């Protein structure tokens, strides 16, 4: 069992914060203390895992950038409609998978399920203008830019301000996602509920993220209800969803 001192020493080593004396101690312990070496190796595995996750996430992002090209290169008209169709299909698939997971899968905690299924929604509403260097960005452009740059705190502030004067379902969806990323579940829930009740667009997306808010709160009853509704919608995979829901019931 390693003590707190050893752990702090190892962490400082990987964070490049060791003093000269600590470096000497680290080296000495590494060559003579097997349990200390195991601790160092474990830290290497964890950091490698973190880096692999980061690279995988960025790889998925590049694939989403690439998919925009295949859409515009092959289909010019209706590409946006097609994008929504794919988004709806993807959400329905996730909903079916999540319902199936609740019914048949191993019982993980709601936090674990949330972490497995939640990914912030991609900004599909206002692509960032990367060429316009001569004109100052509008508050709206800044908000989307902050969201794409993962600056969710700033994105939430800017979207919140903009939504006071402008009704925009896309911005509201991304505000909800920003709040979710910041761990502000109550606010996110409020955003998605408003999107669902006061707007005519993005209902499927609002329901999906609202179900994840319930999940994060441990409110399984409402999470199940919302996921079932999603599975029953007339989108791709609806037949499979109905079939699976019959079995769940």
């Amino acid at each position, binding site marked *: 069992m390693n003590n707190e001192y050893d*752990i702090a020493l190892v*962490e400082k080593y990987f964070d490049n914060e060791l003093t000269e004396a600590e470096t000497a101690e680290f080296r000495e312990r590494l060559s003579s203390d097997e349990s200390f070496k195991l601790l160092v*190796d*474990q830290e*290497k*595995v*964890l*950091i*490698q*895992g*973190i*880096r*692999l*996750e*980061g*690279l*995988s*996430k*960025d*790889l998925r*992002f*590049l*694939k989403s*950038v*690439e998919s925009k*090209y295949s859409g515009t290169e092959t289909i010019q008209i209706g590409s946006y409609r097609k994008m929504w169709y794919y988004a709806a299909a993807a959400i329905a698939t996730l909903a079916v998978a999540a319902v199936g997971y609740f019914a048949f899968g191993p019982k993980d905690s709601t*936090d*674990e399920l*949330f*972490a*497995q299924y*939640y990914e912030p929604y991609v900004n599909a509403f206002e692509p*960032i203008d*990367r060429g316009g260097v001569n004109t100052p960005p509008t508050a709206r452009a800044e908000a989307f*830019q902050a969201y*794409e*740059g*993962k*600056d*969710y*705190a700033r994105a939430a502030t800017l979207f919140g301000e903009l939504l006071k004067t402008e009704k925009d379902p896309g911005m509201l969806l991304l505000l909800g996602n920003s709040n979710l*990323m*910041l*761990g502000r579940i109550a606010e996110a829930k409020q955003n998605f509920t408003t999107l669902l009740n006061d707007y005519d667009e993005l209902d499927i997306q609002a329901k999906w993220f609202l179900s994840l808010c319930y999940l994060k709160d441990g409110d399984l009853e409402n999470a199940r209800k919302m996921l079932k509704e999603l599975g029953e919608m007339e989108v791709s995979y609806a037949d499979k969803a109905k079939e699976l829901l019959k079995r769940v019931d």
Partner: protein
Amino acid sequence: MTQDEIIEKIRNGGQAELGLVYETYREEFLHWVVKEFNCSTDDSQDIYQLTILVFYDNIKRGKLEHLVSSVKTYLFGVGKNLVMESRRKAKRNTPLDQERWLNEYLMEESDYAPTEQMIGNARKALTRLGEPCRQLIELFYYGKKSMEEITQELNYKNAETAKNQKCKCMKRLRKLFEEEQSRTLIETSYE
């Protein structure tokens, strides 16, 4: 914008900058790979995505600070090596498996080679860790952001608070990893 300015922009940026680089050199790179190495469109895209990730990762880790040539020349060089390498491995592993390639890429930078199962358990632990811990340690260990930058990005009170939080998150991650390792050990002993 000079080559060094491009590097600086990427170092301080996030996915928006990554996307910008991807889109800037995409057409020329894909055309070149298809023509030069007779790759399929899908393969050339896979190669290009990994090439951009290596470029991005090298900048983030401080391995690439100045370019003697242009970004384009650098990318083409990385891309060529990647095609050659994937062709060599193709005999035993076709087509190019990007996830596996990334795993091997990370193995090469370390003097310790963990098993795939250990890396899998680390990733499971990371998934169980949840937000905002996961984002915090990813920004630090993968994004190579400073505590000051993380403070701003995740809205912490100050850098000290962010650092304390990072230590707590790592402590929790170690515990979750040990749980995953024990679970694997029990499952293996029952097989």
